[in-house]
């Protein structure tokens, strides 16, 4: 009992560390409706400024704090709101999530352009007597830790009072729920929304500076790592309740101490469970915590006043000729590529084609199914590890092992879908992220999965009868065929029963159900199918690389995959293909032009912000622009023709005037 009390007391300061980040997440969500995964990156901005002013330029504590937290924090929030999130107030959760993911990858790299990449060791604290130790019975706290605990408690009390007892707190919540309704009451929703971002960013800055002394150096990744661990506390607070979030963070801190103190430290249970404890808690909370289990995002009561959004696809049905031409063009492109690509570019193109297979899994689950899955990297890992293990342990032919990996990944995806189906939007995304992180920590390190202590698993290239695909040109053709088949499968799914049912569910689940569609079955099918495609891609990647290792499939990489696919267009096959090409080729081009790798994150991150304005994706937006351009040219031609006198027809009937033709063209009538 006394030991447990000891864990509880030791868990409170640690819980306050989680609380600072978790409350920041909840605060942002509460005041903007954005589940801001870039919160850690924002904290990093202020921490870097504080380090620069305090350690490099030897400012005093107060001026450094004022500049880093009181000035820089709100400015960052204001900029983000004005440039990005103002346009997303009524956007669906995926748009906000993608924007925050884009910022998560872009902000640290932008800061490093100024802050530099040299290690910033020994971050300073705001404590005047940093190393002074205060003793409370058997327990000790550094002065900076004590300050963090006190500030956290004050923040909890202050924010609770703000939202419960003040008009501005109420307005902030109202703007998140319905900007239009709020404006009908004479409140400037725009201003209140900005105020929310200013407040949450101020808090991000405070967290960044308070937490910095915990680290050996200032790095954005440490804040993000902490944020991911603190997600469970935010879920405990249902993403809205500051007090509950604080409590959740304290429980998390205590749970960590109990696990560290009681689990046998050399057991597989400890090595697997302890690192993944926050993610296990998050997963369980999402499944069983009352209030989260069936929660979907609050709906704007006035959302219906807008006209329905235009269809995301430009031309959903194409003529047979167009399809035939597309197929022939693709085949010609592959053959030409085979003939002209040198070894270097062929290697890259193969890699891009394999990534396209994996990215098509995101097209299926997110584009067609409307569900955000952040565990696609784990499904790809299932495919890769299955392929490798069956080859290494049982000497099964590689092609068969890839197929086995595909099937197993599909089964894992379908099983995962069963408990999380009832979750919607951001909660579904969080559940899949938690699954991915658990997979990284528990499954991937095991000997029978990712290889564990045995290191990278070796995977040879496949053989088809007498044909050995060991050489890249042969493997190129093989990959092209596989990609073609997956593209065909994706198109068939979209135009088939599953795709139509998914479309119906996206429109109205109630209406679809009334028509006899079983939402659970369709969604499980979509999840399974998507996971199987990702598994196939994982298997291909393993055999292409010659090895399968956990570092190729970590969940954070999977986040990046989702961002790039959604940015390029998750509703279309072309979007996935373009995303894969960009994923592989853009870093190479940047490298060739002597840009630091950080620029790819800046570019991809900033590109993802276009999603706010163009949810159809960059590819579709470009296509539409081209179509509009052609239509405009046609209309101008028609107008020019209208100015010319209309000749009489042979029958003497008046001809259609140019103005009529132009009018039809503008209205989009007639054949294209």
């Amino acid at each position, binding site marked *: 009992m006394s030991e447990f009390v000891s864990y509880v007391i*030791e868990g409170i300061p640690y819980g306050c*560390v989680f609380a600072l980040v978790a409350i920041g997440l909840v605060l942002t969500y509460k005041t903007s409706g954005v589940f801001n995964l870039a919160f850690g990156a924002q904290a990093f901005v202020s921490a870097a400024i504080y380090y620069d002013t305090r350690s490099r330029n030897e400012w005093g504590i107060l001026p450094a704090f004022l500049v880093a937290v009181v000035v820089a924090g709100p400015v960052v929030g204001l900029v983000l709101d004005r440039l990005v999130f103002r346009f997303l107030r009524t956007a669906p959760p995926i748009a906000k999530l993608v924007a925050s993911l884009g910022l998560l990858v872009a902000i640290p790299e932008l800061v490093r352009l100024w802050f530099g990449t040299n290690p910033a060791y020994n971050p300073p604290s705001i404590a005047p007597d940093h190393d002074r130790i205060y003793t409370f019975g058997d327990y000790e706290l550094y002065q900076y830790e004590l300050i963090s605990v006190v500030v956290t408690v004050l923040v909890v009390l202050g924010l609770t009072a703000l939202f419960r007892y003040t008009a501005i707190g109420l307005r902030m919540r109202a703007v998140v729920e319905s900007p239009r309704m709020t404006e009908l009451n004479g409140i400037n929703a725009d201003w209140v929304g900005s105020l929310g971002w200013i407040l949450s960013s101020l808090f991000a800055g405070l967290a960044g500076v308070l937490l910095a002394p915990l680290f050996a150096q200032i790095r954005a990744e440490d804040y993000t790592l902490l944020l991911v661990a603190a997600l469970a506390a935010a879920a405990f607070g249902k993403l809205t309740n500051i007090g509950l979030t604080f409590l959740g963070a304290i429980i998390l801190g205590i749970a960590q101490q109990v696990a560290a103190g009681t689990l046998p*430290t050399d057991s597989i249970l400890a090595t697997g469970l*302890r690192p993944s404890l926050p993610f296990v808690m998050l997963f369980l909370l999402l499944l069983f915590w009352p209030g989260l289990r069936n929660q979907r995002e609050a709906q704007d009561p006035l959302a219906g006043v807008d006209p329905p959004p235009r269809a995301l696809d430009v031309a959903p049905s194409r003529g047979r000729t167009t399809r035939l031409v597309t197929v022939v063009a693709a085949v010609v492109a592959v053959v030409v590529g085979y003939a002209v690509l040198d070894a*270097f570019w062929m290697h890259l193109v193969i890699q891009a084609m394999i990534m396209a297979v994996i990215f098509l899994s995101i097209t299926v689950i997110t584009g067609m199914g409307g569900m955000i899955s952040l565990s696609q990297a784990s499904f790809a890992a299932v495919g890769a590890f299955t392929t490798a293990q069956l080859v290494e342990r049982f000497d099964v032919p590689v092609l068969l092992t890839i197929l086995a990996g595909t099937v197993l990944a599909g089964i894992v995806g379908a099983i995962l879908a069963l408990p999380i189906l009832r979750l919607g939007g951001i909660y579904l995304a969080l559940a899949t992220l938690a699954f991915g992180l658990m997979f990284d920590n528990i499954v991937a390190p095991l000997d029978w999965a990712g290889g564990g202590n045995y*290191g990278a698993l070796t995977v040879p290239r496949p053989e088809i009868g007498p044909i050995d695909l060991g050489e890249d040109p042969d493997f190129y053709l093989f990959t092209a065929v596989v990609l073609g088949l997956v593209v065909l499968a994706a198109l068939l799914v979209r135009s088939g029963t599953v795709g139509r049912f998914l479309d119906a569910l996206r429109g109205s689940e109630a209406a679809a159900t009334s028509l006899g569609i079983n939402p659970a079955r369709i969604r499980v099918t979509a999840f399974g199918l998507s996971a199987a495609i990702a598994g196939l891609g994982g298997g291909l990647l393993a055999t292409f690389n010659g090895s399968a290792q956990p570092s190729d499939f970590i969940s954070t990489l999977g986040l990046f995959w989702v961002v790039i696919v959604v940015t390029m267009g998750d509703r279309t096959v072309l979007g996935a293909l373009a995303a894969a090409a960009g994923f592989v080729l853009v870093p*190479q081009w940047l*490298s060739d032009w002597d840009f630091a*790798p950080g620029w790819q994150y800046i570019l991809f991150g900033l590109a993802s912000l276009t999603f706010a304005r163009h949810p159809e994706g960059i590819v579709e937006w470009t296509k539409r622009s081209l179509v509009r351009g052609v239509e405009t040219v046609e209309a101008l031609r028609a107008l020019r023709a209208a100015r010319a006198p209309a000749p009489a027809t042979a029958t003497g009937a008046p001809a259609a005037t140019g103005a009529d033709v132009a009018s039809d063209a503008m209205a989009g009538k007639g054949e294209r």
Partner: protein
Amino acid sequence: MRTRFIGLLMVFAVITTAACGNSDDDDAADSGSSDSSAPAETGDGEKVPVDQPGVTDDTIRVGGFASVTNILNGPYGSAFDGVDAYFDRVNDAGGMYGRKLELVARHDDAMGASQQKINELLTRDNVFAVLPVATLLFNGAQRLADERVPTFGWNIQKEWALGDNFFGDKGSYLCTDCADTFQVAIWMANQVDAKQMAVTAYSVDQSRECGEGLVKGIKTMDNTPELAFQDLSIEFGVRDLSTQVKRMKDKGVDFVATCMDQNGVVTLANEMRKQGLAVPMFLPNAYDQKFLAKQGDVLEGSFVLIEFTPFELPKDEKPKGLLEFEQTMKDAGKEDSINEIGLAGWLSADMFVKGLQGAGPNFTRDKVIESLNKIKDYTADGILPGIDWSIEHKKAAPLLCNAIVQVEEGGKLKPAFTEPGKPFICFKSGATAIPEEPAARK
């Protein structure tokens, strides 16, 4: 990321020569000597046509990749500076066999793209050998092994043991989870009269394996302190170790060995100081002068493991190789790269040149590999304790040697347990007991 400085080499032009005929070098290699041919003696030698990838009439092209962009903010790009500095010396001396050594590609794998960079080196950069490699991950190494490309660099991954064409700066075989690997740590614990040891590590692969090696050593060998506490399951990114330190205190721990990164080491040291646990720590991953200078106050008294001659030795005790490295780097204005990684680059270049010397004017990739694998005591003029390349691709050396420095007040480092001219303390591979005295000093 990578910045190409093609053409920066070959600035100086002083030629001192010693003909390096094939037969002569084979003899040298067979004798087991590694120090008979410093760069100044490599000379330009006889020039004959060579039909090998990356070899032209005028140059021998090599290229490497490093995790220049990395989340640890580690100075991995320093490896390029080490190669540059060494190649400058060789080229000043006339190059190799009438050809300049040229580092034509210096890629940044950004931690995750080594596979692509290897492809680029082999298919586009057209290099004869791959050096330096200084990465946190070494995905794609299998291809280098399959194509038998001579590869040199900073060895922290198991992939270095994939083939006999890999030449790491500390040998190519790593067994961090073997019981005898960290005898030096346990021996040190004995030296400071420690009776109760603690071992901590993250649950992630490399860290945990290091912790397992320490635990196995303490548990299975004779003449060791008690293993009072172990925790090899610490979650990466943990910011609180109060429970662990409390248990260490409760169990009377008087020596702590940890396989964690800088963040973890600082978290642990802060917590130990807070709880009044003032005992020495053994840090196998912390030889970073800038880091130790900044965190020295909290790490004072800790022992840091090094696998080469410490930079902190008095000048008159430093071996010739280390003095040359430091001086050349200073002359080149690359003082910032006088660190472990810069040295790994220097050693990579040195081994490559030794391989070329051994291969003779009509050199091939295979000949370079074969000649290096005949060297039985590669020390780089005293920088290393000695690598036997005839065996150290697949198994540990008979003697496991390390140097130790201790952190003093203000983060200053002082070589520990050394004797003049002998910075390394060595233990027998496969030993079953910790000896009272090291098996050898070098």
